[in-house]
């Protein structure tokens, strides 16, 4: 049932990458519980613009949980307290009247803040560029039954491929590790015949890039899996370890 609630928002404001940031508190009254979280921020920004103040910069794009652009660390959880959803799928009905909501950007040495709640997640793109693709000639589109792939592997690869690269795993990890992301991107290809050809090179190149960009070392806490909006399993991390170690021992 729709109702209106009043919220206190503690939001991280930072004018630029090199500037020191701080929290600022905003009061926002009469927010409909039917609003999405990002709509609430839009309302706040319109209010700020009317008051001739600088609106809050935050990342967003598709607003339907598939692009991986939205981020935000809300009350101690990346993408808010709901499991298996992105920030754009979070609604104000999950909050109560008078609640204080703390909104922070992803904090990780490899994700520097650009402005306010917006961070540079280019590090993930660089990891993909290092080897997260298939570059062998796979020919034209083959007949659907020409390459048999077991249902188990197909499902596992599809689960890994559901990673949207939002960065919640690295943002929530106490070690700032990007292993879940890299594991998903390695697994989605390593499980399929076309990806197997370059599997060894891919695992080595992507892990090397991940280390170079300053991500931490995984200690298998499983926080990434718990906060992942796509619920990607840490069993993919074991597969990445396996791929990487067998590639290195073969050398």
């Amino acid at each position, binding site marked *: 049932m729709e109702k209106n609630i009043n919220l206190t928002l*503690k939001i991280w404001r930072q004018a630029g990458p090199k500037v020191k*940031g701080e*929290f600022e508190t905003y009061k926002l009254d009469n927010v409909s519980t039917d609003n999405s979280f990002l709509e609430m921020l839009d309302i706040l920004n319109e209010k700020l613009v009317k008051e001739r103040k600088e609106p809050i910069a935050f990342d967003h794009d598709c607003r339907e949980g598939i692009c991986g652009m939205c981020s935000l*660390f809300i*009350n*101690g*959880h990346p993408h808010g*307290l709901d499991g298996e959803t992105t920030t754009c799928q979070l609604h104000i009905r999950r909050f109560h009247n008078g609640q204080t909501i*703390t909104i*922070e950007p992803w*904090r*990780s*040495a*490899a994700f520097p803040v650009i402005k306010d709640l917006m961070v540079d997640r280019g590090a993930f793109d660089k990891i993909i560029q290092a080897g997260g693709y298939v570059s062998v000639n796979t020919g034209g589109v083959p007949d659907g039954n020409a390459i048999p792939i077991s249902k188990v592997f197909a499902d*596992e690869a599809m689960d890994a491929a559901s990673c949207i690269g939002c960065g919640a795993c690295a943002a*929530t990890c*106490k*070690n*700032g*590790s990007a*292993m879940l992301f890299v594991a998903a991107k390695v697994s989605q290809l390593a499980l399929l015949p076309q990806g197997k050809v370059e599997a060894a090179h891919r695992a080595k190149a992507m*892990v*090397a890039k*991940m*280390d170079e960009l*300053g*991500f*931490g*070392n*995984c*200690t*298998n*806490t*499983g*926080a990434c*899996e*718990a*906060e992942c909006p796509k619920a990607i*399993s*840490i*069993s993919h*991390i*074991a*597969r*990445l*370890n*396996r*791929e*990487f*170690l*067998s590639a*290195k021992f073969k050398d």
Partner: protein
Amino acid sequence: MWLLDSSIGRKLIMSITGVFLVIFLLFHSIMNIVVIISPEGYNAICAFLGANWYALVGTSMLAAGFVFHILYALYLTFQNMRARGQQKYSVTKNQKSVDWASQNMLVLGIIVLGFLGLHMFNFWYKMQFAEISGIHTGQFDPANGAAYVEDLFSNWAYCVLYIVWLSALWFHITHGVWSALHTLGLNNRTWLPRVKMFANIISSIVILMFMSIPVYYLFGCAT
């Protein structure tokens, strides 16, 4: 060298040394529990594992395992703190599925290491070290392990300290065992819960065997 300059390589060293240390703990606990069943039998083991060359080789390999495990832990933790960044989150919440031990491995490791120093002073220094060096460091014969055990645990404070120490060790290895196997790549969706269960069983067996000794003396079952 990829073992040193890649994150998975460094973790491989952590996991191999960790598995090695857990296997050592398993042997150590099996030998220790003999002291409850038969103090004479325990002394026979002590005499057998005295200052022989194979015991010395084993001890130095073990020490090397500890040193690598600890140095790499410190190095990895330092890197991880740097990766986390300067600015900390003001609000953080723990996830239900995340084990407390997994977030506190360094702290638990430091507790274990601190007590290890005490333990080495209480037993190793008076037993194997005394035998190697020929210096008489304790009040009993170096091979009379049972006498040292009984003497130390006649003090209830030591019994309690050892129980606290072993509890910290239990938390450390419940996460350590499955995490090491995970790092070695021996895991998938089906095996993940099984490996975790295996880790709990192994660490509980080891720690219960160790713990039964101070508990046995604490409640005066020996007299």
